């Protein structure tokens, strides 16, 4: 959850303004974490390889080229999705420049234009030493000893490449620890302020990249920024020898038009428990943890049904990712005598409730 904070309040505040601060902390509304907004335009293709090279006559200096290429590698490593893969390519149409002062808007240390996506983009960096109204621009990498107040060119590069990927600016207050949930903040921080050298996407950036470009695998973790509902179903096969039945649970992301490509995804490699209770009982007991099934998003267990019982599958909300747990409908099963005669598998939908 995002909360307003009042950092670095000094002893004077502690003595005089504590009540006011506490009043604010108690009364200011609380924001739920949400994915970074879309910037706009056409997304790249999934895993599309997008190259860039240096604009003629505005070639970044060597130290900046290194930082930009490092930012592209950061983006590739931290995308946690099938977002575009970025890399230097001398033949690519996209351009990065170390710019004349007329390419970016006033006050901007860097800017990006993705209106050419999914074919090309441009990024421009302002020159080291450029005198703005707000101060003299210093890129940290331009100095052998990093000066206070410099900007990390790799962080700025990842921010601009985030725009290239279709990430907008993160909304809400830029005060406090929530700054670290996204590298797409509307205020760039300088050395040595917290967050001055972020080299990974924040979790809310990843959340949008996953919605735009989908997961890399069905077992990959979903971003903890935002919550993605799941749906779990349970079916039982025909009775076999000794009354055994094979239970098959299917876990997927719930159908939801607001989560882009994540809707209906199979969810593999999670912990799905099979539970049972005697008919009429209100207490469930664990039977087993279901094994990964042959089809993505499925989990299977074979268990003997020796009395009239009710069954369900449970996927508990994990602490380490942004999926919401779910529970299947209940199956009511009775022992059957048709050993060997019940060859066909059937779903016992009639027994569910």
């Amino acid at each position, binding site marked *: 959850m995002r909360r*307003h904070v009042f*950092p*670095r*309040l*000094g002893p*004077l505040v502690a003595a005089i303004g504590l009540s006011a601060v506490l*009043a604010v902390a108690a*009364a*200011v*509304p*609380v*924001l*739920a974490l*949400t*994915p970074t*907004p879309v*910037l*706009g335009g056409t997304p790249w293709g999934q895993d599309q390889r997008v190259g860039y090279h240096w604009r003629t006559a505005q070639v970044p*200096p060597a130290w900046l080229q290194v930082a930009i290429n490092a930012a592209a590698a950061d983006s590739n490593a931290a995308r946690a999705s099938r977002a575009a893969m970025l890399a230097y390519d001398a033949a690519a149409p996209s351009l990065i420049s170390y710019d004349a*002062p*007329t390419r970016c*808007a006033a*006050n*901007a240390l*860097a800017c990006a*234009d*993705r209106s050419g996506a999914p074919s090309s983009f441009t990024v421009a960096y302002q020159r080291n*030493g*450029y*005198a703005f*109204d*707000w*101060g*003299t621009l210093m890129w940290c*990498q*331009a100095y052998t000893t990093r*000066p206070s*107040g410099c*900007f990390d060119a790799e962080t*700025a590069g990842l921010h*601009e490449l985030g725009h290239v990927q279709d990430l*907008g*600016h993160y*909304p*809400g207050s*830029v005060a406090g620890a929530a700054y670290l949930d996204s590298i797409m903040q*509307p*205020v760039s921080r300088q*050395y040595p*302020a917290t967050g001055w050298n972020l080299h990974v996407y924040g979790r809310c950036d990843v959340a*949008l990249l996953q*919605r*735009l470009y*989908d997961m890399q695998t069905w077992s990959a973790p979903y971003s903890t920024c935002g919550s993605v509902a799941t749906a779990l179903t349970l079916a039982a096969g025909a009775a076999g020898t000794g009354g055994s039945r094979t239970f098959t649970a299917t876990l997927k*992301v719930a159908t939801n038009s607001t989560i*882009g*490509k*994540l*809707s*209906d995804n199979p969810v593999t490699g999670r912990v799905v428990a099979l539970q049972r209770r005697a008919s009429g009982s209100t207490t469930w007991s664990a039977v087993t943890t279901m094994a990964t099934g042959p089809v993505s998003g499925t989990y299977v267990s074979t268990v003997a049904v020796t009395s009239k019982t009710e069954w369900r599958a449970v996927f508990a909300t994990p602490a380490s990712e942004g999926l919401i747990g779910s529970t299947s409908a209940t199956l009511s099963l009775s022992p059957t005598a048709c050993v060997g005669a019940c060859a066909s598998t059937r779903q016992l939908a009639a027994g569910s409730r």
Partner: protein
Amino acid sequence: MTAGPRPSGRPRLAEGRRWLPAGRRWLPALAAGAVTIVIAAGCVGAGPSGGSPAVTAARPSTPIATPSAPVTPPASIEATAAPAPSLTRPPSAPPDPSGVVPTAATPAGFPRAVLVGGTDAEVPATLGSYTWDGTASDTPWLPAGALPTSEVEAGAALGVRVDGAVVDAWAVDAAPAADPGGVDLAAVGEGTGPAISFPAPTAGDVVILVHATFVDGGDAAWYWHIVVR
């Protein structure tokens, strides 16, 4: 993969409302927040830790000068390999006696914002970072020295009028004018919908940042330097 609808145009992938149910009960908090800004302004300006590590507010051609920053930026790597790094305006930029940095204009049709409720009828914003129509522009915190100063009455009800876009959500942050890097930020308020309003501090000299996102996509970070009289 799956068949969820793809965004087009300026898509939004919101998961419903961003606000929790109590989201509208912020007015008492804003009043208290204004008090906090005043306190923070006095504290930061006077305390030994008030020196900001951030870059200074400096007009073009003005050397950096803050308690914690060097008076002259250190020589860059480029400076060791090439003659005389430009610490003022680059050679490609013609001298501008007005002091205004010549840069590309903001995109056509970009929304404009004015502060209302101060002693001046309307105070235009200074634009920081924004996204709009497939483009993005990124700035640091804009310090008081880079902004026109306007006066407001203590505790006045301030508002921001936006022309050219419908605001979806907004947030207001403030920092003492003596904090050029916006390090000692305080959140003043947040809201949804087009009506942006917040109370002026009861005293002090602060920089206000209003960050707004637009219903049809895009966002803007707008700054004002206000002095309470």
